[in-house]
Every structure is written in C-alpha cells, then in structure tokens.
C-alpha cells in the first residue's frame, strides 16, 4: 500500500489515532499507522489509494491535510536521496502540469526568502517543466520541516504531494458562538464533531443521544449525514422554554431551529422528553435498531444527575396525590438524584439491546486525576472497548469512551451469565454527593487529591532529608576512613624514614671507621 503523510492538528492528541482509524472504517479502507508521535503533527499511514486517502481526510477534525509521501529524511541530502530513489516513475506524470512548491515549518522560525528559494531550487532534478502557479495548480508539493522545541535545525523532513484538505473547517461553521441556541453545558463544536466521527456517524445511519440538551451531539452527527433523534429529562431544553444560555437573548429558541440553522432539519426525527432509567424506547436485543449512541451524561455538577422517582420511597398517600394531579397543567413529576456509576452501567445496558452489531456507543466520562484510570472504565461482555481518548484539565479530566457492539458470536457467554446473576452494588444514599463520587470530589475542590498530593510530597521530602542525613554520615565515615588511611601512610613513611636514617647513620659510621682505621667496637 502506498504511504501518505497526514498533517495533523496539534491538539487533542489522544483523539487523533482513534479518529483516523474510525474514519478509515467509515470509508471502508484499510489503514495502517506507520509512524505516529503525540509530539509531532506529522503522521505516516499506509492507505490503498488516493481516493481512500481523500475519503479518510476530508471529514477529519484533527487533520489539516493529507499528502502522498514522496520522501523523508533527517537532512535535505537524505530527503533528496530518498525522493530520487523512490519516485522517479512518478516524475513524468507531473512534467507538464502547473504546480506549486512550498515549505511548511512546524515549530521553526521564519526563514529568509533566499534560503527557501535555494531549497526549492535544489529539487530541480524532478524535472518539472510546467508553469509555476500559486493558486489552484494541477499538482501542489510541500516540504515539511519538523523542528524540536527551540532547535536551530529541523530534525526531520518530508516531501509530499497534496491530496486533500480536511473537514476541520466544520468547527468554525458549528462554533457555539454562532449557534442559534445553546445551553450552559453544550459541548464544544470541535469535540462534538470529533465524537461523531469516532462513533462512525455517516449517511444512512440512525443515531441517538439520551441526554441531548440543546442537541449538540445530534447536530454533529447530522453534519456527517446521519439521521438523528434525542431525548432529555428536561423538556424545556428541547422545546426551548427554559431560556437561553446567552445573556440578554430573548425570542423563540429550540433544538429544531438549530437543525434549521445548519440545513439538516430533514435528518432530525424530533426529540422527546424521557428518562433513561424509564425509557420509552423499544428494548429488544433480537431487534436492535440504532447505529450509534453518542452522549455526554450529566455529571451532577453543572447539570443535575436525576432520574424519575421520589427521594424517599413515596407513601401511598403521596402516590394518591400524584395520581390525582398528574394530568393537571404544569405538573412536574418527582425526580431523585442517582448514582453516576449506576447511570453509566444503565447506558451500557441500553446500548447492548438497541445497537446493531458493529454499532458504536461513544460517551464522555469525567474522572479526578488521582483515580486509577484503568479500573474505572465501565464494561459489558457484549461491548468491546474500541478507544479511550483523554482531555485533561488541571485536577480532573474527561474521557471519551467508545465501545463497539459485538456480534452474538463474539460474546463470552460465561461472562454474560455472570453479569446477569451478579447484582452490582452502587453508592447508597439520597443526597447527590453520596451518590456521585466525582461530584463530591469536585465540590471539595479535589481536596482529598490535594491532601494526597501533599502527603506524597511530604513523604518524598522526608525521604530526602533522611537520605541527606545518611549520605552526610557516609561522607563523614569515609572522611574518617581516609584520614585513618593517611595516618597509617604517614606513620609508615616515618618508620621508613627512620629506618633510612638509621641505615645511613650506620653506613656513615662504617665509612668513618674505615677512614680512621678503627676497628668497629663489638
């Protein structure tokens, strides 16, 4: 398969591979990632054809463009050698085309024009005889210089022929600032579109959001051609009677009008008011009907996490009052706080009975940064975790979890049976904070996390002090040892010197005796 250079956007790094793989699946193309680094916007992939490359890139959010790879190397000599080695068969195709040749630097400083000209000139060996044309040339070539931070010289170079731009512009079209109707918890347009891509939204498919709010996710899915529906426990957000999140904005606003703004109203089946734990949707594992579920469940922070029911078990008298009044105008059914982990499991269970095999569930989930990430990913035997993408904030992060509905033949029957017999224990209580660990931590300003961090630092510092003390003692011991050694040496030398003096004195005495012919006294 030919190699292509993907020019990625240097943002939301942990989503980039997941998006590329998802879009390849939508395009029905085999994609192999050859070279990828979170710290670089240049990624090399293998794809079957230019058409496949275009299909993958053209709706991607975290891609800027895709290029046919003509060569690479860590110096210009290496790059030219590589181009000469691998591409001569292609040169004739572009011999008489109008073309452009540009240089893009990542993290490099602006170079003088002469430098750029000299580089472009050094690729004259390609033998292009066509006209140089800046706007809409037949073929557009680009050299990419990848610099390390603060480096003077690029550490890697690529030459590519432009194939297609990406669908990243959609983030401006769907920008929340320009959207007709939003709420305080509307998901950023770029991330909503990214979620739709990772969930494989595409023409012909049916998508659902059980916590739609003002419809951000369904709108994003509709952008990629899916037919969508959604629901929310708060009917005001769908009908638009709850007021706008924008200060001073009045007048009619509702989800329908958002779809009209983006000319996708034909794909919006309509929203309805419902609660996931008492859903009116058809739940029959034998007859699934959804291609995808995308959602950002309420964390219980900005948006309350509530389901139908009374906080305390309703008495027969209270029930009688509800039975009498429920048809009256303005009746509001009682709601109670609910456990976040229970809700996540409910979403998974719902996805299992409504998704067609191969369908995707993409949901966002928050966690404090201190928690063990692996342990907290909810799972179900009928769902395969296909990607985990993290958006980190200071003390917490949110993750996009994407699951693929397994075919019946792929499901581990024993695990499924175990799940049915086991009743999971959830947090008990009637107050929101008792039920939602994340919410409690959030409102305590992640104090426990902070405390833990402090404790950790204290332990580290303590260990450091002990280490210093120990090393000082060792130094001292060593010093003493050295001085002892030196003393021994000195004593030895003294002994030697004394011996020498004695010997020389004896020799002198001998000489003198010789001289004066005196017999040595015995």
């Amino acid at each position, binding site marked *: 398969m030919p190699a292509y250079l993907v020019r990625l956007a240097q943002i939301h790094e942990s989503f980039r591979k997941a998006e590329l793989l998802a879009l390849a699946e939508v395009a029905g193309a085999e994609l192999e990632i050859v070279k990828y680094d979170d710290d670089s916007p240049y990624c090399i992939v293998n794809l079957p054809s230019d058409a496949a490359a275009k299909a993958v890139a053209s709706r991607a959010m975290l891609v800027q463009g895709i290029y046919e790879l003509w060569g690479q190397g860590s110096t210009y000599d290496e790059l030219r050698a590589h181009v000469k080695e691998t591409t001569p068969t292609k040169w004739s195709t572009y011999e008489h085309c109008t073309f452009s040749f540009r240089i893009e630097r990542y993290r490099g400083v602006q170079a003088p024009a002469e430098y750029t000209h000299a580089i472009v000139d050094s690729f004259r060996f390609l033998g292009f005889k066509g006209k140089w044309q800046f706007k809409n040339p037949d073929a557009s070539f680009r050299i990419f210089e990848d610099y390390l931070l603060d480096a003077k010289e690029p550490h890697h170079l690529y030459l590519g022929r432009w194939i297609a731009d990406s669908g990243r512009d959609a983030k401006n079209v769907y920008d929340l600032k320009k959207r007709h109707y939003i709420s305080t918890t509307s998901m950023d347009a770029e991330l909503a579109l990214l979620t739709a891509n990772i969930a494989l939204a595409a023409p*012909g498919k049916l998508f659902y959001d059980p916590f739609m709010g003002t419809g951000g996710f369904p709108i994003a899915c509709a952008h990629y051609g899916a037919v969508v529906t959604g629901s929310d426990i708060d009917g005001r957000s769908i009908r638009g009677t709850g007021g706008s999140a924008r200060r001073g904005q009045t007048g009619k606003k509702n989800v329908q009008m958002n779809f009209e703004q983006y000319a996708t109203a034909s794909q919006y089946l309509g929203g*309805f008011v419902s609660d996931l734990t008492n859903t009116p949707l058809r739940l029959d594992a034998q007859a699934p009907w959804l291609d995808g579920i995308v959602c950002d469940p309420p964390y219980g922070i900005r948006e309350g996490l509530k389901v139908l*029911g009374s906080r305390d078990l309703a008495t027969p008298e209270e029930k009688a009052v509800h039975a009498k009044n429920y048809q009256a105008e303005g009746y509001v059914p*009682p709601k109670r706080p609910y456990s976040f982990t229970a809700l996540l499991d409910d979403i998974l269970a719902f996805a299992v009975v409504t998704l067609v095999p191969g369908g995707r569930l993409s949901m966002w989930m928050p966690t404090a940064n201190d928690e063990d990430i692996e342990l907290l990913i909810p799972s179900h035997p009928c769902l395969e975790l296909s990607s985990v993408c993290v958006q980190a904030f200071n003390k917490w992060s949110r993750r996009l979890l994407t699951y693929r509905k397994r075919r019946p033949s792929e499901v581990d029957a024993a695990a499924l049976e175990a799940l049915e017999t086991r009743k999971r224990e959830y947090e008990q209580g009637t107050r929101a904070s008792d039920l939602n660990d994340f919410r409690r931590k959030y409102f305590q300003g992640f104090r426990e996390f902070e405390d833990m961090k402090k404790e950790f630092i204290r332990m580290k510092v303590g260990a450091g002090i002990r280490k210093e003390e120990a090393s000082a003692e060792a130094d001292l011991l060593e010093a003493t040892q050295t001085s002892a050694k030196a003393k021994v040496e000195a004593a030895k030398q003294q002994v030697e010197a004394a011996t020498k003096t004695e010997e020389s004195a004896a020799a002198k005495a001998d000489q003198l005796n010789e001289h004066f012919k005196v017999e040595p006294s015995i």
Partner: protein
Amino acid sequence: MKLLTLNFLTCAIKTCKTQASSFPLHPKDSELEIIEADMNLPFLKNILPRLMWEELRLICKELGLPDLPPTAPTPNDLVEGGIQEVADGQQPADEQPSQTAKDLHRVLLETCIQEGKLVCGCCGHEYAVKEGVANFLLPGHLV
C-alpha cells in the same frame, strides 16, 4: 416528531414493556403536519429491515393515512429498476427512489405529529405531545 419515531417507542412503564400490547403506542386526537424533507434513500434502505411493519401499518390506519402494502417492501423495491450490482472499484450508478420509496418517505419522514396523545394499549396511560415533543416522564405514582 416524525412518524418513524413511533416505530421505536413503547410505553415507559416497566411492567408494560414486557407486554406485547404496549407497542405501538396509539395516537389519539393527533394533529398531523406534513413537513417537507429531503429524500434520503440510503437511510430508507438501511432502516427498512429494522421496522416493525405490521405496527407501522396499524398506526397509518389509525391516523387515516393511505394504506401501506400488507408485506414490507425490500430495500431492492426502494430503488427505481432495482439495486444494480457494481463490480469492485466501480462507482455505483446514481440510484433513483421508486414510488414505494417516495411513499415511505412521505409517511415516515415527512408526516409529523405536532399535538395530541400517545396511548399505551396495555395500561391506557396517555403521553402528551406538545409542539411536536412527546413527554414520556412518568408521574410519581407510576415509577
């Protein structure tokens, strides 16, 4: 709400959900409106096998809409001249919707319930539809 939605909705009460009579919900006193929508052939082809056809026919009858054929059409019936096989690597020819597809499109994606009620055939509970948005929240005594 577009009429297609009704094919996915049952009663929200848990004890009803296990009963066959809770699906479909029966429209009552409904005001219908035709809202033009773009023809979406790939979607119709995809969703057709997932529809509960008998129930769809029943709802059309209850709403006084033109009768649907007694047996569900196949995706092949939706394309004028049938679905053409394309060899690998070839661009598929532009498919045109058949009359069946146009009729289905009219019923499923252009007919909308704006006001009225949806009634469960099992417990008789009525869910109100206002401004095209149905409310399935259960009152305190039914949760």
